[in-house]
């Protein structure tokens, strides 16, 4: 019985020791050191889309209506078949490497 009273007493004194620590500007200091707020995902997507559309319009206007694309496609189609295959393979490898790099950067270097 006396043992229990001693334990209660000790716990009560220990809790007293944990008196409230006044904030005193601590919270403000922490908040000040937080990294700047992230731009929201939807806003970020809208900005990216807008920039892409504007850049496309500018490129279209500056290139005289995009005729160069049709010209380059025609020229590409006239190349020898092995060159076309090689170009396609190189493009595939580049896209895969880019995707892999993007995934690894998102997962901090881990693939699983």
């Amino acid at each position, binding site marked *: 019985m006396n043992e229990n009273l001693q334990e209660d*007493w000790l716990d009560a004194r220990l809790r007293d020791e944990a008196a409230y620590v006044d904030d005193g500007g601590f919270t403000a200091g922490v908040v000040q050191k937080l990294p700047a707020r992230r731009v929201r995902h939807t806003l970020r997507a809208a900005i990216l889309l807008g920039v892409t559309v504007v850049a496309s319009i500018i490129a279209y206007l500056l290139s005289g209506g995009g005729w160069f694309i049709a010209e380059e496609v025609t020229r590409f189609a006239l190349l020898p078949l092995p060159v076309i295959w090689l170009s396609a393979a190189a493009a595939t490898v580049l896209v895969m490497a880019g995707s892999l790099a993007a995934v690894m950067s998102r997962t901090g270097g881990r693939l699983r």
Partner: protein
Amino acid sequence: MALTDADLVARVLLDDDHHAFAELVRNHQSSVRGLLRQLVRADVSLADDLAQETFLRAYKNLRSFRGEARFSTWLYRIAYNCFREEARKRKELVGIDEAQLEAEHDPHTTDPALRHDLAHALQLLPLHERTAILLCCQNGLSHDEAARVLEIPLGTVKTNVLRGREKLKRSLAAWDLTKT
């Protein structure tokens, strides 16, 4: 109606709401700073630096908080890790800043002499026993929660609390424990 820790965490994660995080800091700063002050032997400025680091790490790693434990338990764990890293860096931590501690305690709750003796007795405990006592008896964590914070087996926490209590009782034997 006051928001729960879970609500505030959700707001921070969804909208990066700094106000919600400030509310979390406000709610828990006292217990985290109090624990760190006791761990670093009451070097108040070091304890507050560690507490700030604790909250900044908590913000950075908030996505890893799964809500399985209480938010405070998760914070204590970060705080304890900050303390361990600092202790490893410094090897030896500085002495007690008793004057500042005295100034922040409510002088009416307990006899100042008893409080002094208790603080001294606590500082004399080995770190593992002191930490277990602080978490379980002072901050109200269960043995299981303290085991998770300290990353040690449950049985070890129980033993450390038991031994710490015994030593405290011996140190404070001069006080009539059941009447004060």
